[in-house]
């Protein structure tokens, strides 16, 4: 009955693959793997580069520093090291999804941390007042940037470069040259320096595994019974197994007693980890399951199409900068917790480079329209691994800078090549 199959070119292929064949085809593992391979070839790399990078780095540092790198203490250290990078990167994912950049995110996190420290230490405010104020200031910064970018249409590169300089000045004024402000609030310090009870860690990890598996299976079933596009069940189960393994192994390693002396015990997941977990769940939900998230992708993919579809492009633009700077504030708080203090250079140096690197290594495109919240976690781990491993190797500072810069460049090159690949395959 279909009359629109063109004669001539590619008719056989068209016949074989028409009628939404791929949606109806009963997938087995073989065809699902072939689809996956085709997607990789077409430049849809997903989490692959980050996962390969993680494996390669772990292998490399294990070979170079077998006893220190894999030690329990270092594993806990690594997880804490990754926290602020990951949170900052998660905010940047939103900004990068629009093809914009926020060069001021690092120093914004520093300024927000400085505000927090001043409020707690100098003004004697309780932690929640300080945290809310810090996040509120982050959001105000983001709103201002977003307004300048989307209403005045100044390129985000320039606006945030100006903020990069300006906010450092504000932090300097606030703390005083060369100074530091100590952070001694129990709860804030606990984020990076105290651990959950072992039982709570296991409970949370198990709940996450169960929740994730249930969501995936329910979604699969809903789609399957309605005869909609769905992955084969084996694929879904494998995905659940990988997530479960990662969570449970992580919990196991962090639950081991890592105290340097036999007289005390020290174990458990650092409190900051579930914070990142919660942020990951919320951001994944917002980006993947809500209309707002869909609109972010649309504006990043084709702003004109989004505008014609009735989406308020300006509002979306402002909002991603608000989220970016808001999460930067959270990242600053976690970093302050790790150091127990805030210095004038907080959030400066390579902080931003690390976070952008994390997002891009994780799979977020610098060209906009592609990226996920989980990219920040995967990429954050990769960056923390590099930072941590180079530290253990005693690499001199100049080399660390060089290597980290090269890694970012490498990730951006993969992103650019994959994008070229995608546009060659289309049309």
């Amino acid at each position, binding site marked *: 009955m279909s009359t629109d199959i063109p*004669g001539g070119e590619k008719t056989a292929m068209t016949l074989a693959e028409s*009628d939404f064949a*791929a949606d109806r085809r009963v997938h087995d593992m073989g065809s699902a793997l072939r689809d996956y391979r085709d997607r990789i070839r077409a430049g849809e790399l997903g989490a692959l580069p980050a996962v390969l990078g993680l494996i390669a780095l772990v292998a490399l540092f294990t070979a170079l520093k077998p006893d220190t790198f894999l030690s329990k203490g270092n594993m806990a250290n690594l997880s804490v090291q990754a926290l602020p990078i990951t949170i900052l990167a998660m905010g940047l994912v939103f900004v990068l999804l629009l093809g914009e950049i926020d060069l001021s995110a690092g120093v914004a996190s520093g300024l927000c941390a400085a505000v927090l420290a001043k409020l707690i230490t100098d003004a004697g405010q309780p932690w929640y007042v300080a945290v809310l104020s810090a996040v509120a200031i982050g959001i105000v910064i983001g709103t201002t940037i977003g307004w300048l970018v989307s209403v005045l249409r100044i390129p985000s590169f320039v606006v945030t470069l100006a903020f990069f300089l300006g906010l450092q000045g504000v932090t300097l004024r606030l703390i005083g040259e060369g100074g530091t402000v100590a952070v001694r609030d129990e709860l804030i310090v606990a984020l990076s320096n105290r651990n959950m009870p072992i039982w709570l860690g296991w409970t949370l990890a198990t709940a996450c595994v169960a929740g994730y598996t249930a969501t995936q299976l329910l979604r699969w079933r809903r789609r399957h019974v309605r005869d909609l596009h769905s992955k084969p069940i084996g694929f879904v189960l494998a995905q659940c197994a990988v997530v479960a393994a990662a969570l449970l192994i992580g919990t196991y390693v962090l639950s081991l007693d890592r105290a340097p002396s036999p007289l005390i015990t020290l174990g458990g997941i650092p409190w900051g980890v579930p914070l990142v977990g919660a942020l990951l769940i919320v951001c994944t939900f917002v980006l993947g399951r*809500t209309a707002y998230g869909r609109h972010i992708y649309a504006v*990043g993919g084709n702003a004109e*199409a989004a505008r014609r579809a009735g989406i308020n492009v300006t509002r979306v633009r402002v909002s991603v900068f608000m989220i970016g700077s808001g999460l930067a504030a959270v990242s600053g708080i976690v970093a302050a917790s790790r150091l127990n203090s805030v210095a004038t250079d907080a959030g400066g140096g390579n902080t931003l480079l690390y976070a952008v690197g994390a997002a891009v290594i994780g799979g977020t495109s610098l060209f906009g*329209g592609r990226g996920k919240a989980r990219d920040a976690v995967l990429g954050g781990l990769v960056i923390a691994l590099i930072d941590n491993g180079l530290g253990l190797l005693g690499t001199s500072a100049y080399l660390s800078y060089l290597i980290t810069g090269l890694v970012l460049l490498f990730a951006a090159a993969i992103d650019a090549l994959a994008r070229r690949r*995608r546009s060659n395959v*289309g049309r």
Partner: protein
Amino acid sequence: MADNGDPVLRVTGLNKSFGAVHVLHDVDFTVRLGEVMALVGDNGAGKSTLIKCIAGTHPFDSGRIEFDGRQVSVDGPRAASALGIEVVYQDLALADNLDIVQNMFLGRERRRGLVLDEPSMEQAARETLARLSIRTVKSVRQQVASLSGGQRQTVAIAKAALWESKVVILDEPTAALGVAQTQQVLNLVRRLADTGHAVVLISHNLNDVFAVADRITALYLGRVAADVARSEVTHGQIVELITSGRSGGLGLAPRTAAENI
């Protein structure tokens, strides 16, 4: 309920100027349900301007637009789509990084509470594609970036048809396509009309026009030179109407046609 053949959109005496340039002169234009109305004219004749006035993108100076027999004011793209007027512009405006379903529902997503209702959108998208016999896409969950030019055009048109739209306006839908893909899109244009939509087809290609149109409106320098049934005219007459505004007994009075030169 309106039937096939009823005029669903009627424009009368429409005038539009950009500053001092008078682009549309007393334009009358009617489209009927179940009918493909071709809008032809040379470059700069005012075809795009006319549909932008209808779609609420451009305000106009004078004239009236009736929809379903009632006078309406289309003061924005939103108002036009609320009435059931959908435009597929030449540049399509699809987001490459989204899949077919996501593009078709962009800006009008179905939700259950906070959450997007993906199954219902996917099903509706598939039903619309099937109704229009669009069967050349492998998966409705394919990213638009991976589609051919013809498939992209097809998706853009199906998107317009999804919204119970009564009038679908297509600006040069075949301009960038090869022979096979053009045929595919023309079939789709015909099916749109056959499934009860009123279709406006803007095209430079008279072969396309004669292949699918029921009526033809020819614009000449911003004036309607003729509004005729396809069966009553020849290729040659349309060419003359486009190039000189008149052809034998058809077209503008000689004085009017000459006035603008």
